[in-house]
């Protein structure tokens, strides 16, 4: 009788171990990381409506190494004459690694003079940040910057 009980216990323990491994697998799932990039791509698709986005004209500047992700200076610069016929209508900034991909949107006019915007953002993880510029003629241009974040912005406890 004793031997049987021991066998059952061992069998049960093995099953729990198996379950534990599966649970661990879910936590360290690379799909988690890809999900955020997919969110970013979806956000970009919503902005452009599926139109082609050309590389160029947009320069996104963020420090390559960030100590504290809570306040990262971000500068977007779009090469444009900013005349009534040819200006930047909007600049969308999308982060691939944040819980929400959209960070901010700036709407410009021919009276803006330049398409240079500076602000301070929160970055959750080391990631690539995108800036999409929508021109008055309907074309889209993109630029990006990568950065390493030491202290994430989104995980601090109050």
């Amino acid at each position, binding site marked *: 009788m004793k031997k049987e009980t021991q066998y059952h216990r061992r069998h049960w323990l093995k099953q729990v171990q198996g379950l534990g491994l599966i649970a661990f697998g879910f936590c360290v799932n690379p799909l988690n990381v890809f999900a955020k990039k997919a969110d970013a791509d979806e956000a970009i698709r919503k902005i452009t409506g599926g139109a082609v986005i050309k590389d160029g004209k947009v320069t996104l500047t963020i420090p390559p190494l960030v100590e504290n992700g809570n306040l990262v200076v971000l500068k977007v610069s779009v090469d444009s004459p900013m005349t009534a016929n040819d200006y930047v209508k909007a600049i969308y900034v999308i982060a691939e690694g944040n*819980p929400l991909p959209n960070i*901010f949107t*700036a709407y410009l*006019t021919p009276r803006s*003079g330049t398409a*240079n915007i500076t*602000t*301070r953002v*929160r970055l959750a993880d080391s990631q690539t940040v995108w800036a999409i510029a929508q021109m008055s003629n309907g074309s889209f241009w993109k630029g990006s910057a990568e950065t390493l974040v030491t202290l994430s912005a989104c995980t601090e*406890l109050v």
Partner: protein
Amino acid sequence: MPASAKKDSIIEIRAIAQHDMESGFRYTESGKLIPRDIIRTFTCTYNNVEVFKADFYPGIGANPLIIFTTVAIETGTLEFTWVGDDGYEAVNQAHITVS
């Protein structure tokens, strides 16, 4: 921003608001989610004509800063409006003399 400028020159405007910009992703020590409370939009009008607008999301840092430019076309008043959650609204004005 400068108080005076030459006509049609490009001036830089730095606007900052004092606001915690609670992202809605933070938890208290007891595990309760702190609700989102952020500034949503910033608008700049120049003699009542909108020249710049920005939409903010939780990814913008606390005490949001925005630096942008505009063309000094005429003497007048620039008005800066911040609108956010929970009825937050802040308006600021600056005068510019253009010669």
